[in-house]
C-alpha cells in the first residue's frame, strides 16, 4: 500500500501524486509476508451531513467570547481560585471519498465542544475542578444547541468552590473499597480498557511500535468473560446511537456505519475491524471503523462510539449512592495510565466523596483507583439507567505514526464496582 498526499489539486499535481503512490506501493511490496486481502464492500453513492439545529459558524465571536467571559467571572469571583480556563471549539469537516470500485461519498461533519477548569493553588498543592468534563469539556457531533444546553454559567461558581474546598478535604484513603464512578470517568475507563484493546490492528501487532498491542488475542473472541452480566458494550457509529464524536454515515474506506456488539452480557463478542483485517476474525465484511485525522493521513482503525449500555431497571445516581453502605464516589478524570496491552491501569479523578450508609459524608481529594481490566469489569454490580446516560466525547485520542488525533464517543451511566484498589497513586 502506498499513499502520497499533496495540497494542490491541479491535474498535473494529482497525476504526479498518483504515480508516486504507485512507486511507494511497489516499494512496500519488497518487504511482505502475504498479500493484502480486502473484504468486499458494495460501492456507495451518498451525501450526508451531521444533523444540527444551529450552525455554530453562524454565531458571532463576540457572543461566544461574552459567554466564556461570564463563566470566567463566575469562577474568579470565588476566593482561592488562582487560575480559570475556558474554551469553546467548533469544527466543520468536509470530505469526499471516491474509489475505483465506484464509491462517491460526500460527508460534512460538525462538532461542537466547550468546557472550563478552575484551579486553586495553596501551600504546595494544586487542585482543580472542571465542567462538564476535564481536558476540553464535553464534545459532540452537533450544532450550537450543544452550547445552549450545557448550563455553562450556572455551574461555574459551584465548580470553582469545589476546587477551593478540595484543599481542606481529607486525602482519599489507601486500601480496597467499593467505588462509584460518574459517567464521564466511566467513559474514559471504557476508552482505555475496552476501546483500545478491541482495535484489531493493535491485536494483530500493527501498532506494536507506538500505541501498543492488546491482551485481547483472537482466540478470546466469544470465549472471554470480559465483565459481569451487567456489562453490555457496543461500538456504534450510527446516528441512532447519538451525536457522538464517532458518529458518521460512512468510514474512510467507504463502509457504512454499523453497530457491533463488543461485550454482550459480560462476554467478549466483537472487535473494531477494517476491510484489510476483517478476514482475520472470520468476518465477511469490515466493521466500518477506518478513519483518518484529515486529508493528509492514512485511515486506520479508530473507535467509533464505544458505549456501555445503561441498566434496564430505573436507577439514578443518587439512588445508587443511597444503596451503597460503604464506598467512594469519584468524579471527573484527572490522570490516566495503562500498559501497552491495556490490561493494568490506574486512574486519578478530580474529586471524590466518601459514602457511608447511603450518604456522602465527606469530600476526598486526590482520589485514584487501579486494577486489571477484566477483574475490574467483572466487579461491576450496578449501573444507572438511561436517564443518567450521556454520550461523552473524547476529542484527543492519539494513535499511529505519523500520529493522528481523532474524536471518539463513549456513552456511559454512573456505575458501581466492588473490591477496587484505591488511593495507591498518592500513598
Amino acid at each position: 500500500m502506498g499513499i502520497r498526499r499533496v495540497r494542490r489539486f491541479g491535474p498535473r499535481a494529482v497525476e504526479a501524486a498518483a504515480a508516486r503512490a504507485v512507486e511507494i506501493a511497489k516499494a512496500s511490496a519488497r518487504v511482505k509476508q502475504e498479500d493484502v486481502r480486502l473484504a468486499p464492500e458494495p460501492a456507495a453513492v451518498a451525501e450526508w451531513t451531521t444533523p444540527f439545529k444551529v450552525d455554530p459558524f453562524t454565531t458571532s465571536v463576540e457572543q461566544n467570547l461574552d459567554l466564556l467571559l461570564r463563566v470566567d467571572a463566575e469562577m474568579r469571583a470565588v476566593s482561592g481560585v488562582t487560575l480559570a480556563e475556558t474554551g469553546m471549539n467548533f469544527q466543520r469537516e468536509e470530505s469526499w471519498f471516491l474509489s475505483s470500485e465506484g464509491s462517491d461519498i460526500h460527508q460534512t461533519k460538525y462538532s461542537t465542544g466547550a468546557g472550563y477548569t478552575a484551579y486553586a493553588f495553596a501551600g504546595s498543592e494544586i487542585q482543580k475542578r472542571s465542567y462538564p468534563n476535564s481536558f476540553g469539556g464535553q464534545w459532540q457531533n452537533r450544532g450550537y444547541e450543544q452550547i445552549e444546553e450545557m448550563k455553562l454559567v450556572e455551574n461555574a461558581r459551584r465548580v470553582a468552590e469545589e476546587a477551593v474546598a478540595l484543599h481542606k478535604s481529607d486525602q482519599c484513603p489507601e486500601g480496597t473499597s467499593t467505588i462509584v464512578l460518574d459517567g464521564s470517568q466511566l467513559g474514559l475507563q471504557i476508552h482505555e480498557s475496552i476501546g483500545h484493546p478491541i482495535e484489531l490492528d493493535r491485536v494483530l501487532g500493527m501498532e506494536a511500535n507506538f500505541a501498543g498491542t492488546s491482551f485481547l488475542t483472537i482466540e478470546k473472541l466469544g470465549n472471554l468473560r470480559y465483565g459481569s452480566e451487567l456489562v453490555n458494550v457496543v461500538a456504534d457509529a450510527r446516528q441512532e446511537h447519538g451525536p457522538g464524536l464517532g458518529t458518521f454515515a460512512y468510514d474512510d474506506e467507504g463502509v457504512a456505519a454499523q453497530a457491533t456488539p463488543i461485550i454482550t452480557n459480560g462476554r467478549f463478542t466483537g472487535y473494531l475491524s477494517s476491510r484489510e483485517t476483517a478476514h482475520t476474525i472470520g468476518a465477511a465484511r469490515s466493521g466500518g471503523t477506518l478513519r483518518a485525522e484529515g486529508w493528509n493521513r492514512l485511515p486506520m482503525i479508530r473507535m467509533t462510539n464505544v458505549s456501555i449500555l445503561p441498566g434496564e431497571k430505573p436507577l439514578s445516581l443518587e439512588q445508587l449512592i443511597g444503596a451503597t453502605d460503604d464506598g467512594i464516589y469519584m468524579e471527573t478524570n484527572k490522570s490516566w495510565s495503562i500498559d501497552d496491552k491495556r490490561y493494568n491501569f490506574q486512574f486519578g479523578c478530580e474529586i471524590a466523596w466518601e459514602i457511608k450508609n447511603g450518604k456522602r459524608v465527606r469530600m476526598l481529594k486526590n482520589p485514584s483507583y487501579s486494577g486489571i481490566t477484566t477483574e475490574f469489569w467483572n466487579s461491576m454490580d450496578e449501573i444507572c439507567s438511561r436517564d443518567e446516560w450521556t454520550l461523552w466525547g473524547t476529542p484527543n485520542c492519539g494513535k499511529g505514526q505519523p500520529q493522528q488525533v481523532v474524536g471518539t464517543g463513549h456513552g456511559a451511566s454512573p456505575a458501581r464496582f466492588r473490591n477496587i484498589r484505591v488511593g495507591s497513586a498518592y500513598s
Partner: protein
Amino acid sequence: MPHLYGKSDMLTKEQASDTFDRIRRFSSADEVEAIFTGSHFALTRFANNTIHQNVEEENSVISIRTNFAGRTARATTNQFDDESLRRAVEASENLARVQAPDPDLLPMPDAQEADGMTGGTPVAPLCRSFEQTAAITPADRAEVVKSIVSVAGTHKLTTAGIYSNSESEEGIFNSSGLANWHRQTLAEISITMLAEDSSGWQKANSPDVSKLDPKWLAETAAQKAVASAHPREIAPGKYTVILEPAAVLDIVGFMFWDFSGVAILDQRSFLNDRIGTRLFGENINICDDVAHPLQAGLPFDGEGMRRQRVQLVENGVVKRVVYARATAEKMKKSEYATTVGPIEPTGHGFPLPNEVGEMPMNIVFRASEA
C-alpha cells in the same frame, strides 16, 4: 542527487519574503506577522515483518497574525494565491478586532531585538540540512526495513517500527523588519522486536542520516527482547531501578512544561515558590540547548526571538525557567521578580496568541563528572 520528491519545490526564503509583501499589502492592521512552515515528509511503517503503511506528504502552510492596539489574532491557510491570502488576512483581522485589549501584548520585535542584541547569549545559526537525508527514496527505506526484518529473522523475532525522512523549513517575517528562516532535514528509525513473552525497543534520529545505523539499532532491540525473555512477576514495592535514557525522558518529559514563566505566574507549576531550592540529586544538571549536536529544532521561537542556551538545573538546584518576551516583562513586574532567578526573553515562546507561553524543548541532561 534526486530530492525526496524527485524535484524539490520547497519554498525559498525569497519566495516567502515576496508572499509576505503581498500579505502586508492586503492588511490594514497596525502590525502583521507571518509564519511559514513547509515540509516534505515520508514514512515507511512495518509490523509483523511486513511494510504495512508507506506514506509521503508535501505541504506548506502560512499563518498570519495581525495586531490592532493590543488586540491580536491568527488565521492559517495552505493556499498561497492572492484570494486565499486575502481571506486569511481578513479572518485574522476580524478576530483581532473583537478581542479585549491585552495589556501584556508587546509590539512585534525587530531584527535587532530578535537576534538577542539587547541581552542574553543567543545560539549561533544552525546547519541542520543534509542532502543525503532529503534524497532517501521509498526503495531506500524498503531496503533498510528488509535489513531490520533480516535481523529479526536471525533471532526468531517479529519486528515492527518506522523509518522516516523529511526536509522542512520554517520562517517568520513581521512588519518590524524581522525575517528569520531555518531549513532542516531529519531521519528517524524506531524498532520494536517482539518475542513470545518479551520485547525490545530502540530508536534514533538525526538531521544527518549517515549518523543512523539501522543494523545496530535492530540488533540492540533484538538483544533486549532476547535478554528479557521469560520474565517473572515481582511484588509491588520500592526498588532501586536503572532506566535507559529514553525511559528517563518518558518519565520526566512532562515536567518541563512547568519550567515556564507563565506556569509560575499562573501558579500551576510544581516550581511555584521553589526556584533556587534543591529538588534533584546533586549530580543532576539540566539545560535547554537547541545547539547541542544531538538535538534538532529551530534556532528561534514563535515570535522570531533567537533561542538561548538556558541552565535550568545546576547540581540539583533549580536555577531558572524560560521566557517568551511578554512573559519576561510581566514577571519583572510581578511579586516573584526577586525569587525566580534571571528574567529575560530566552527564545522559547510559542506563536502568539497562546495560553501556555513557553517551554524548554531541547533538554540536555549532563552526565555526572564525579
